[in-house]
């Protein structure tokens, strides 16, 4: 399946890790799901991930923490944040830090698709 871009999902909520990859595969992406930031950082998928779908509130390293970490490592992976907390103060902060989008749960499949597409665009735009 060369050419199918890899979308990685990092969320501590199991139901998200179950449902989201199925949807993304229906969209035609390759999917890897991780339950924590640490798990993702330790994986081989960082390099191939074209888009990262990242939960904000997680035990241990939070979503914004991972965003920071990746920036520090020079990994410019486009990030789409998802969160169940309808806190308006979080969204501007993560977008300012370079996130492609911040989706509030529950989100529609169309909104997700658009965000991923934007992320891939970004990737292509900045890529070589």
């Amino acid at each position, binding site marked *: 399946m060369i050419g199918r871009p890899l979308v990685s999902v990092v969320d501590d*909520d199991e139901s998200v890790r179950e*449902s989201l990859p199925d949807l993304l595969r229906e969209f035609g992406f390759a999917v890897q799901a991780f339950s924590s930031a640490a798990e993702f950082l330790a994986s081989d998928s960082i390099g191939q991930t074209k888009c990262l779908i990242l939960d904000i509130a997680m035990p241990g390293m939070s979503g914004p923490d991972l965003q920071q970490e990746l920036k520090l490592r020079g990994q410019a992976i486009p990030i789409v944040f998802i969160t*169940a907390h*309808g*806190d308006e103060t979080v969204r501007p902060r993560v977008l300012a830090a370079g996130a492609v989008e911040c989706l509030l749960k*529950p989100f*529609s*499949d169309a909104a997700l698709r658009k965000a991923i597409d934007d992320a891939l665009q970004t990737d292509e735009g900045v890529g070589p």
Partner: protein
Amino acid sequence: MENDLSSVVDSLPGLVWTAQPDGQVDFLNRHWSVYTGLSIDEALGSGWQLAIHPGDRPGLLERWRSMLAAGEAASMEARLRHLDGEYRWFQFRARPLAEASGHIVKWCGTGTDIDDLRRSAMGQPGGNDDHRSVADIIPAMIAFLTPAGEFENANRHVLEYLGATLEQLKGRRASDAIHPDDLPSVIAASERAVATGRSEPYDIDHRIRRADGVYRWFHGRVMPLMDLQGRVVRWYIVNIDIEDRKRAETLLAGEKQLLEMVARRQSMSEILKALCRLVENAVTDCYCSVVLVDPDYTHLEAGAAPSLPPGLTNPMIDRPVHVDTGPCAMAIFLNEQVIASDIALDTRWDAWRPMAMAHGVRACWATPIASATGPVLGAFAVYYGEPRTPTPQELGLIDQLTHIASIAISRAQGDDALRRSEARKAAILDAALDCIITIDHEGCVTEFNPAAERAFGYRRDDIVGKQLADTIIPPSLREKHRQGFARYLATGETKLIGRRVEMTAMHVEGSEFPVELAISRILLEGPPSFTCYLRNITERKQSEERLRRSEALLAEAQHLSSTGSFFCPRPGEFTWSTELYRIFEFEQQMPITFELIMSRYHREDIPLLNDVIDQVNRGVIDFDYEHRIVMPDQSVKYVRVVAHGNPSKDGHFEYVGAVQDVTERRRSEAALAKARSELAHVARTTSLGVLTAAIAHEVNQPLSGIITNASTCLRMLAAEPPNIDGARETARRTIRDGNRASDVIRRLHALFSKKDTAIGPLDLNSAAREVIALLMSDLQRSRVILRAELFTDLPLVVGDRVQIQQVILNLVRNASDAMSDVDDRPRQLSIKTERDEDDHVRLTVQDAGVGFSPQDADRLFDAFYTTKDSGMGIGLSVSRSIIERHQGRLWALPNDGPGATVSFSIPCRPTNMKGTPELGAMRIVSGEEKAMSNQ
């Protein structure tokens, strides 16, 4: 006729008279009257006695009376007064006149003047027959010897004693009959008398051999008649028999000697031997023995038999005390004298008789020796080689010596008993574990046994003779002792004698120690003396004290822990501790019965009791159960019973058990459960703003899943060909997430249904303590070491106890959770309360967990910042909002070392505030109400 005869009689020159049978003179002849000058009338009856020489009158009358009594003719001599007042010796002869039947009707007598005759008899030796008859009357042996000591003349007594006629005697030397042992002294005395050259009498005692060869003692009065040249012309000798007196003297001396031996406490066998020898010496040809009887009066024991062959006496030792054994045994048995005058003719003692005969014994007189108090001590026996019956004299002698033997034996046995008793007493004194001290009536120590030496440090020799009050009685008690002692001696009143009391005594080195003391008065005559029995009871006191203390400690411990104990040695028998009585609210010491226990049992728990009884009967030995008891005031107590049975000696089980009043625990458990649910309730209702976000999160999560899954499902179904299995799976997940959302809603509904929360004065310490109690088991499970430093005298604050507790709970939980992965150091957690500045009170929770970096300090309080995933928890953000609503602040600081410190500080209650009426009215029931009250 009679007158004729009377005139005849009157004309006789001699004195003639008659008397009636009773001695009254009824006739005197005229010559009598003429001679004496007394008229007949005066002299008749007893008047004649006036004419008798006063010196001779008593002797004459006695002789007269004895003659009347004997009824036989007699003659007597006395001096009769002539009318001119001169006395002349007369011989009076009297003869009875009797009828044919022998009955005396009259006495006839004559009086003959013998004065001249007497005078010539006394002055002229060897005189005529008249003189001789006078000499014969004198009860003494009278002899005249030639200057060479040969018999010249002798009276009848001499002839009879020596068994010879005067003719045979003449020419024989008087000294031949003198005992050889006495002869030298007799000769010496005569030589001394001759040497004086004067005719003077001298006295000498000596023994003279009788015709039968027996010597008897005589007292001799001897006078040599000297001529002018100093030569002996003739020896006059009068010997008076003093044998009986001598014998009496000998016996007396012997008895005295024996009694001296007794007094000198010589051995009984020596005394008895001496006694036998005394009798053997005093009585010719006899042998003596003493046998004793054992204390049980059943067997004979050896006494003394110094002159008897052992073959005769030894076989009697240990023979039974019985009439058949022998004369001595018989005498002892019967306590009567036994006389065997001729053993050859006797028929008693079949075994003893031949043996006695074989040893030449022919007579034996055995006399029991009785003690003064009655019991027979033994027997005294006299043996003869010839048949013989005791004379009254001998019986008297035996009686006398038996008495001495009794004294000697009683005394010896008494001494023996005394010696034994003394030895026993000494042994008792020496071996006694108790101190035994005797004192006399002046309070001086007279005895001090080894135990007392050990206890008091005095040596017996040093303390005997000293005042008790100066030695072992402590100075503080001495005056009291002296007074008590004096009072007892004066009045007999005592608080001590015959009782067991505890006192203080003093060691020679001055230390004092407790003693148990008993004093008894020694029952002896004379001034009172006392025996004191003392025992050092220091150790007993100490162990009593220890026991008392440990009992008190146990009682205290039982009281503090509300735990009673019981002992049940056999079914239905109970011993309860004081605390158990208290728990059951029975009166102390009330006898515990099964029914009594049953009466307290909660009606619903009776089946439990029956079950326990059933188990006991089945031999179950361990019990641990809980039941309720109902007090008289109908209050209910929960008690936990733990018991264990041990097999007893009689085959039962003895149960020992503890009963704990767990009512408080039960109540606080219930209270804790209530507090927990209230806390949980408050946790969910405190901050609506924060809660909304939480609710949003909780609901949005499943909603997100539902939408995603539904979208996926649609896409799967819309694919060509449709992915049915995938769609089914996603649809299933959709339903599941829908249910999850529904649960959240239901929980929220429940959360808001509870409303009451109140505000009031609050002691932060007690709030913290309750939280600690609530969490203790969790903390222990997590191996967290909790240290609470709660400031004493902490001012009260105002607030909602449950909310504040919720904050403390959260801080402690966070701290504990932060250390869950810590294994390289102690999981130390401290809770501290203290006064803060500006009338604030501060509570600090410090952990040694993962901590946080300084730059994250603010973010800690973000509503969504968490390090854990425990469902719908409210984190520090809720805590902070609660504290801020109490006009306080909450902050966190990283530690210098590992871990973090989170503190909050809230204002104290204003001192002028009486209760919290306004705040008390403020009720946090819901977000809306809170919002309203804030306005």
